[in-house]
């Protein structure tokens, strides 16, 4: 196999071009050419995402760009993940985050921004979506063993579900195995402390900062 510099550059550019189709197609090509899956991510795709993240940090790019880059990354990873499982290789990331909006709450945008910012910041993010049942959060924590569980709630009525999830994790003996971070418009620092969360993030940028701090990065 030739030195796959060119393919890494192309993989990265599918992300910087925000092109999910090309990201998935180029990833397949790289796999077919025998490039190890772990190198496809780390030396190819992740480099593109890092570049977008840095440009976002310098205010040269904006949220829609970040989100679209994260979408392209997601598309490529859906091709790669089965391969990564086969080889048993682990991506080096800042950490694994499982995130979702609690039951009864269908607000998506804020969480989408958090997902994009965390992804661009080097985290592996698994988004469970909106209106997620408490039992599903517990199942996913057991199954996916994330470093961080992020719970979003925008309504003053649905914040109570964050306490319910915290309690359910304790009952399932999972609470100490995962850092719990809460956020969303209706959530305050006081509330986070009251339900014994490990972290509180008012917005996407704080979410990134708090996640790094909690994992000692």
């Amino acid at each position: 196999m030739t030195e796959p510099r060119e393919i890494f550059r192309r993989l990265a550019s599918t992300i910087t071009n925000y092109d999910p189709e090309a990201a998935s197609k180029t990833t397949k090509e790289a796999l077919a050419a025998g490039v190890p899956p772990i190198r496809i991510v780390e030396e190819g795709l992740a480099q593109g995402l890092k570049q977008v993240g840095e440009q976002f940090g310098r205010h040269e790019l904006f949220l829609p760009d970040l989100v679209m880059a994260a979408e392209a990354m997601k598309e490529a990873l859906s091709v790669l993940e089965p391969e990564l499982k086969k080889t048993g290789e682990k991506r080096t990331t800042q950490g694994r985050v499982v995130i979702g909006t609690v039951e009864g709450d269908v607000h998506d945008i804020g969480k989408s921004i958090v997902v994009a910012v965390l992804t661009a910041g080097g985290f592996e993010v698994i988004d469970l979506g909106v209106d997620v049942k408490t039992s599903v959060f517990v199942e996913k924590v057991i199954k996916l063993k994330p470093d961080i569980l992020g719970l979003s709630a925008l309504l003053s009525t649905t914040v109570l579900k964050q306490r319910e999830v915290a309690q359910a994790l304790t009952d399932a003996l999972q609470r100490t195995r995962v850092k719990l971070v809460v956020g969303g418009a209706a959530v305050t620092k006081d509330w986070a402390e009251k339900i014994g969360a490990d972290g509180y993030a008012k917005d996407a940028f704080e979410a990134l900062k708090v996640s790094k701090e909690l994992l000692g990065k």
Partner: protein
Amino acid sequence: MGPLAGSLKVLSSDELERIHQTSLNILERTGVVFKSQEALKVLDRAGALINYEKQEARIPSQLVDESLQSVPNKFMLYARKPEHDLQVGDGGVSFTNGFSATYVLESLTMQRRLARLSDLRDFTRIADALRCVNYVITQCVPQDVPKEVVELYIAFTMFKNTSKHCYPATYTLQGARDMIAMASMLVGGREEFMKKPGIVNGVVCPTSPLRFSADATERLMEFSGHRIPFGIWSAPMAGATAPATLAGTLVVQNVEVLAGLVLSQLVGSGTPIMYGSGASVMDMMYGTSASGSPELGILNVASAQLAHYYRLPCYGTGGVIDSKTPDGQAAYECMLSNLLCALAGVDVIHDGVYGILESGMTANYGQLLISHEIVEITSRVLKGIHVDDDSLAEELIEKVGPGGDFLRQRHTQQSFRGEHWIPTLTDRSPRSEWERLGSKNVLRRAEERAHEILRTHIPEPLDSEVQKELELFVTKREKELVGAA
């Protein structure tokens, strides 16, 4: 610049007609004073009724009609760098920086001191860098330069520090002549200048009510003789130098501008003229000029209508501020008149990117950047709302459906830059980010931006031969003017 320019009107066509008719009556029966025998002779020869003793010229409406025939309704202002060339009168709205402050309010100490030549250099350099300053005017008058030579230094400093079109202030006939001589060097000689006099422009201000001083008249004739585009900027104060009523104030302004226009076209037929307004009211408590007043705003809207009635570009006044510090009052004053002028379709909003406080007295670097932000906002408003298949996004709305996420759509990524104004100075960050960056208010951020521009922006340098020629000229003239004194 945008489909909303010219959409705002405050006068009906009947009302415009009445202002016009009243102005003609005043011109014909009362007349205007020109403190220049030469000007009176020119008007006399053309058929005006002259009282040489009182220096009054009564101007028949036929002369007004003739001058309106010969004056162009659009023209070019040329820049040292052709990409900054500017057409005036094509329906677009242009902005300048602020004009002619005497003092500078220091950034951190908020102490007021006299303006220096280095301030003019720095303000000109910042204006050169700012996107919304379409051409540059004299932000402050250096007080550390002898009065006899200040016009020379203003022109030299401005030519050096901006490659945009500029208007170096002149106050006397001699100053205007020197400035023209220097502008000629910029374009490669007198002959070239006569082909391209729009490399500079000028402003002539009547002294309300209904008078042109000797200096103003002589400069008006000098500019017209060279076909240099200029604004006749009339600034009556309602209740003091014009009737308290805004309609009456517009009549005084209109008479002055039309009188100046007639003289300009008699001296130099075809000289481009901008219909200028700085009309405002007098503050009835303190007797000061209320530049930041709502009345100045709507008087400017009316002036744009009058200018366009005559098919002349309007040289309006927007962005002006009475507040003494760059505070909330400064922001709302600057915003109001800029927005009104822009919506009225004022062709050149002089002072838009103002950066001056205290009714023209005191320049401030932070305020210049804040004013620029206000003009950016105004420019976005002017763009209005574009409606077509793509912007209606029917298919997209169907695709995303109830509860969906538009942020994750390619359409969003492809269209937000053209649709949304993206601020660079205005803060909308989450509190955490704002605190991380030092919890700075807009003035602090604006001052930092101003200093950053001064650190990093280098204006296109003058051609070295031209620079030498200008230096020699300034040195020579300085010897003649100060040496002789």
